[in-house]
């Protein structure tokens, strides 16, 4: 008997073989998103997937067999906002890279969170600019030598979850590709959450990060995620020194606040 992968039904014919490098964490993320949709028994035709430019932008585009908008570098959340505002009944999901969402597109990220617009943003954080050849990103660890920080990175890395939480998101979680099950659970939660949900996923780039910086291959990077991560609960009892260089994984925010398109609908109803 030939087994068919249960998620293949969501993959665009002709795009089955992904464009990513061997071992790239983005494939694990793609699978987690599709698995969440499958387990929730949602119809993928009710979704619009929006992505920017970068390797992570190719997670849904063209891989997911659904309406997909592959946009410009940094702007997917702004495009997605237009989609959601015009069609609030759509499930709008942005999947893109750390550079895309937090450097060039950082302003759109915080404002979407502030508005609490009903969309899910999933950030593939590989700590680097993968597509353009391993340049420093705002998420690159301090001291790391990249192609544009040959003497070591002198800038601090962004804590994306803290940023989005401060801006007002309804749901925030962080996982790594090693935590694919937790990630799937969070995607399910995010997809059914009212308001703005954000999931940061540490996703290995074995080529531009792993190989160039000597951190190792995909397996070594995922083992690193396993060894260096702590649950939110565990982290709560540790001090700053003990948390240094640790990855805190799990749900960081889960709260209820008014969602933008519902508020707009209320204003409209005054005129009916």
């Amino acid at each position, binding site marked *: 008997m030939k*087994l068919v992968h249960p998620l293949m039904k969501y993959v665009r014919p002709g795009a089955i073989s992904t464009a990513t490098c*061997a*071992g790239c964490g983005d494939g694990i993320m793609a699978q987690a998103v599709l698995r969440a949709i499958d387990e929730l028994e949602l119809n993928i035709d009710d979704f619009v997937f929006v992505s920017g430019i970068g390797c992570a932008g190719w997670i849904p585009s063209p891989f997911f067999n659904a309406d997909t908008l592959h946009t410009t570098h940094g702007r997917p959340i702004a495009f997605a906002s237009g989609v959601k505002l015009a069609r609030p009944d759509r499930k709008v999901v942005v999947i893109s890279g750390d550079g895309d969402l937090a450097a060039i597109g950082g302003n759109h990220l915080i404002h979407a969170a502030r508005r609490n617009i009903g969309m899910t943003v999933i950030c593939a954080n590989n700590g680097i600019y993968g597509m353009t050849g391993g340049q420093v990103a705002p998420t690159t660890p301090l001291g790391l030598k990249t192609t544009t920080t040959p003497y070591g990175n002198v800038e601090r890395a962004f804590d994306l979850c803290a940023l989005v939480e401060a801006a007002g998101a309804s749901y925030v979680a962080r996982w790594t590709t090693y935590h694919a099950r937790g990630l799937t659970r969070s995607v399910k939660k995010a997809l059914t959450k009212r308001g703005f949900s954000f999931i940061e996923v540490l996703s290995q780039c074995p080529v531009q990060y792993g190989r160039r910086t000597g951190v190792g291959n995909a*397996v070594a990077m995922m*083992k690193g995620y396993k060894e260096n991560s702590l649950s939110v609960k565990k982290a709560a009892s540790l001090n700053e020194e003990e948390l240094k260089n640790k990855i805190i994984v799990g749900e960081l925010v889960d709260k209820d606040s008014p969602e933008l398109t519902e508020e707009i609908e209320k204003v409209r109803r005054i005129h009916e």
Partner: protein
Amino acid sequence: MIEIDEDLCKGCEICVAFCAKDVLEMSDKFNKKGVHPPLVVREEDCNLCGNCMLYCPDLAIVVAEEEESG
């Protein structure tokens, strides 16, 4: 049972590394992409945990319970 779509495999070895039961090994043969896909060598040890499937970035592995015959 485990099935590997060899031609989708990119040879990253994640599945082999994260199988706690040592069921998989990289093979010597080349697939269409020119890489070595893994081989199921100790299927009897497999506990169907699904890790290999969950972690394969290229949807190349399917793990499913054997359908009861009869």
